[in-house]
């Protein structure tokens, strides 16, 4: 199955995904995801960001085969998500994971390893290796019932990696984890990237996405609003940012004068303290999607009245 075709297939390929949930026996339904397409290239770290209820988790669940799409397709390394074999290449860490509380950390890794067909010495070595990777060697023989949230998140990441998957799917990997734990997880993601493992994560912690992701998609109300490499998304082609330290008002006035005098027609747009650009982009997208949703609702209401 490994790279059977000449061109390496994308780690994740979502094509025109739509997912509709029925609410009741009447025609009441909710469109969770609408005509969504995205691609996670092999070896790429992709961040799907969006507010709560935007369809991030639904998209992930479809990719993982936990849900069937209403229409559209999802593939993992070229294998359809509804084919159980696609999961051989996936390691998944759900949001706020709970594993069997009655198992110790070590037993947890053995359990998931066995599910993936690992056995014997190989599995034991792998489990120790992973415990070292996520820094849980000292807690290996404690039952998960006694693990902290950050430890659970790390053992979760370890179990996701047990069968050496080529793709790791992380749902809100740092939700509820303290800053130190959060940093540890970020470092782990960067290590995975170095090892050439594709990562598909979703989050609403923009700063973190910005730090680790090669590409991001912004999803709101079930639709993809912006997608692309982080650089491209944030960079605005016809604008240039100058960041100064300890600039006096006089200096700024002189620069403004220079701009005004420019023959090329340059324009002074504004000045102030820099903001997280992705955050700005994100908020803009959400606002736009909200406006769009309102407009569509109004249209629907108008149709109803007719």
């Amino acid at each position, binding site marked *: 199955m490994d790279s059977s075709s000449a061109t390496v297939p994308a780690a994740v390929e979502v094509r025109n995904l739509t997912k*509709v*949930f*029925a609410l*009741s*026996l009447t025609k009441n*339904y909710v469109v969770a995801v609408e005509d969504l397409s995205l691609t996670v290239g092999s070896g790429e770290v992709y961040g799907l960001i969006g507010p709560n209820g935007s369809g991030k988790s639904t998209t992930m669940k479809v990719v993982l085969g936990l849900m069937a799409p209403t229409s559209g397709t999802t593939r993992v390394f070229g294998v359809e998500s509804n084919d159980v074999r696609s999961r051989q290449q996936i390691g998944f860490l759900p949001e706020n994971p709970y594993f069997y509380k009655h198992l110790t950390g070590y037993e947890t890794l053995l359990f998931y390893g066995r599910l993936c067909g690992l056995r014997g010495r190989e599995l034991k070595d792998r489990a120790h290796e992973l415990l070292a990777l996520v820094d849980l060697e000292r807690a290996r023989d404690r039952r998960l019932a006694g693990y902290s949230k950050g430890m659970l998140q790390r053992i979760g990441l370890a179990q996701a990696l047990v069968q050496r998957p080529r793709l790791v799917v992380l749902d809100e990997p740092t939700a509820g984890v303290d800053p130190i734990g959060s940093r540890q997880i970020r470092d782990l993601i960067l290590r995975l990237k170095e090892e050439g493992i594709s990562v598909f994560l979703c989050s609403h912690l923009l700063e973190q996405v910005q730090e680790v992701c090669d590409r991001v998609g912004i999803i709101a109300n079930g639709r993809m609003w912006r997608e692309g490499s982080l650089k491209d998304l944030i960079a605005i082609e016809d604008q240039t940012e100058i960041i100064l330290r300890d600039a006096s008002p006089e200096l700024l006035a002189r620069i403004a004068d220079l701009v005004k005098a420019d023959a090329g027609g340059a324009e002074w747009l504004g000045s102030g303290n820099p903001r997280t650009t992705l955050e700005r982009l994100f908020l803009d997208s959400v606002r736009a999607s909200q406006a769009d949703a309102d407009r569509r609702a109004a249209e629907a209401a108008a149709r109803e009245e007719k």
Partner: protein
Amino acid sequence: MKLRRILRKTAMALAMLVVFGLLRSPVEDSLTRRLVADKLLMDTQAANLSGLIGQSAFLAVLGGLRPLVAIYTTLHAFDAWSYREWDTVERDYRIIVTLIPDDIDSWKTGAWHLAYNAAASYYLDESLPMATRQRLTREWVRKGVAFLEPGLEQHPRSSALHKQMGDIYREKIEDPCLAARHYKLAMEGDAPRSYMRRFHGYFLARCPGREREAYDFLMALYREGPAQRLPTLIQRVKELEAKLEIPPAQQIPEVDPDIEMRKQFPHFRGE
């Protein structure tokens, strides 16, 4: 839509269950019939028709619980017995034998409680007038017989049950003919004991009109050897010899039964 699919799947699942039901029913019914015929399953139809157990019937049909209910009822009957609540004892034992009809001992114990304990308890109850005491005693002996009869129907080859019935006819009703009949069935049954044959002979000897038969039977036992030549046997043969006017040459020798017993059982001290 998703909901339509759920409805479709539910209908489909139910249809699968129905088809499975159609396929398995004949097998299950025939196996059940076979097990009931082999007395491996309770004939619930019959139990319920008897209308006896009411609420217990519901419990009774529950798998694995029947014997437990029977044990509980035995405890209950034991309690009732110690308070001489004979109606309760009777009802409890009817429930017990309905729950575990294969348990010979329950039939036996139930009949014994009614024909012996209850009857004797009324007979000894001095608060009642004599006529009532006698009537109640007879009534409870009859109840014992009535209780045991269905047990004999279900276990026609049970030596223990026929022996119990024979005992009641012998001791409580004093009907030697019927006693002899049940001892005969006991000795021909599934677990005969040697005394059952002698008992059959002893009471046949007392049954008017069957003296000759009894004589032949007892003489056959006598000829088997010293082990059968017990004092009562010799006594009965002697009585029959007199009744049937057996010529002296054919009569058995008169012996002191105690001496005979001592020969066989050195510790015997006499009756």
